[in-house]
């Protein structure tokens, strides 16, 4: 086929290559912008007041610069389409999924708002335990000095993928059975590796020797609240207080016992999917809690 000069229905090789380059540039995966909490507050304020009065000390400039670099607003404080899409998605979202990961003195957050067409994901630095991390590395984590978030506007289906990516996944060999532990030493162990295991049991000792961190997962409006333990090489565990069977726990007082149920990687993925789908599904149309395999139920503790 030969392109005719000036015939846009048949492109020349040069025209194709030019369009191919334009496609590559337009669809390249870019690093998501980083926004501080002050920048997030500014987005909210800009929606109400497009031209904010600049404080006398000029403190507004860094946040405005962040928003401009992220393509959310211009340097004068006028919101761009990207900023409006971000704010509208958060404001009119159908569901909110949030994960907080606590290790040592540090709590890191991943938050998402799911709308019908888009979802917003805000995430602090990933808390994923790296292969070389020791129990002291993780228990010694300090609060983030800069509270900043990466911001992504994605399709709703991407939310559980991003959640799992943020939490991290690694080869793991959890014991194939649940175990029971007193809650108090477990909570103390998360911040202090010197706390001894509560009893002499090879499985518990193996878990105790790992870097540990707690995950709190919340899905609204479904009202799911789950508590999980990430024990690096011995896997992820769902926590449930003694009387609740497979239900999740909210150990506010740190007393009593807790049942740890191993959550294999596939079951964790499925759990995130179910939480996402259930959060955005209207009551009565929600998928069944448990999968057909041995995944623990995401029933957790529910808001009334």
């Amino acid at each position, binding site marked *: 086929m030969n392109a005719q000069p000036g015939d*846009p*229905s048949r*492109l020349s090789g040069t025209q*194709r290559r030019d369009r191919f380059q334009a*496609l590559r540039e*337009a*669809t390249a995966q870019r690093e998501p912008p980083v926004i501080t909490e002050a920048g997030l507050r500014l987005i909210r304020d800009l929606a109400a007041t497009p031209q904010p009065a600049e404080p006398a000390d000029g403190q507004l400039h860094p946040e405005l610069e962040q928003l401009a670099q992220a393509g959310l607003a211009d340097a004068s404080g006028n919101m761009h389409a990207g900023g409006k899409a971000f704010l509208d998605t958060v404001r009119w979202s159908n569901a909110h999924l949030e994960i907080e990961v606590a290790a040592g003195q540090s709590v890191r957050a991943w938050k998402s708002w799911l709308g019908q*067409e*888009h979802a917003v994901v805000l995430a602090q630095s990933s808390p994923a335990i790296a292969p070389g991390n020791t129990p002291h590395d993780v228990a010694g984590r300090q609060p983030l000095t800069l509270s900043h978030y990466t911001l992504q506007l994605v399709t709703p289906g*991407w939310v559980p993928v991003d959640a799992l990516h943020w939490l991290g996944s690694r080869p793991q060999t959890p014991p194939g059975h649940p175990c029971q532990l007193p809650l108090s030493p477990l909570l103390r162990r998360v911040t202090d590796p010197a706390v001894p295991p509560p009893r002499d049991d090879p499985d518990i000792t193996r878990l105790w020797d790992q870097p540990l961190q707690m995950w709190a997962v919340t899905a609204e409006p479904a009202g799911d609240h789950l508590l999980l333990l990430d024990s690096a090489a011995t896997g992820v565990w769902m926590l449930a207080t003694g009387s609740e069977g497979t239900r999740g726990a909210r150990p506010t007082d740190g007393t009593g016992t807790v049942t740890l149920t191993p959550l294999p990687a596939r079951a964790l993925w499925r759990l995130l999917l179910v939480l996402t789908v259930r959060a955005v599904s209207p009551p009565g149309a929600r998928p069944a809690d448990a999968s057909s395999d041995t995944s623990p139920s995401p029933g957790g503790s529910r808001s009334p």
Partner: protein
Amino acid sequence: MTAPAWTSVTHPASGARVPVPPGWQPELDAGAPVVLVSPPAPGQAPGFRPNIVVTIEQIPPEVAGLAAYTASSITGMQRMLTGFHVIAIDDITVGGHEGCRVLCGHRDGTYALATEHWWTVAGGVATTLTASCQVEDYLDLAEVFEQAAAGMIPARGLDRGSAG
């Protein structure tokens, strides 16, 4: 050695005809779009399979003209697709009718996708050929897409109850 021949499929409810590239699998249903899927290459890792989809739709009066239909279609894609960009819009002839060729890019999960659309509006019916592939495959497939679009015969009409 003769190159494998192109064939064609005709959508029964509308009369739209689409050329089928050699080796591509046509999927045809009276109430659904015409879908052509490229064959998986031997040894190729699972991924996004290039495809061509032809849709035929009775369009509402407010988007009856080509310009209005084009604006409405692009706005809809902008709303629905992540990281959507229009790369080029060309005024062309599609099956002898005034039409439009639109090249777009967007992201879908880990994929960067190119979608190229050819559409025309005739008698209140829009016929659209949408060819999709990963951006990295676009240069290899652009000519195949173009040839399929060049040989497309738009819908004559649309049987009541049949949606393309």
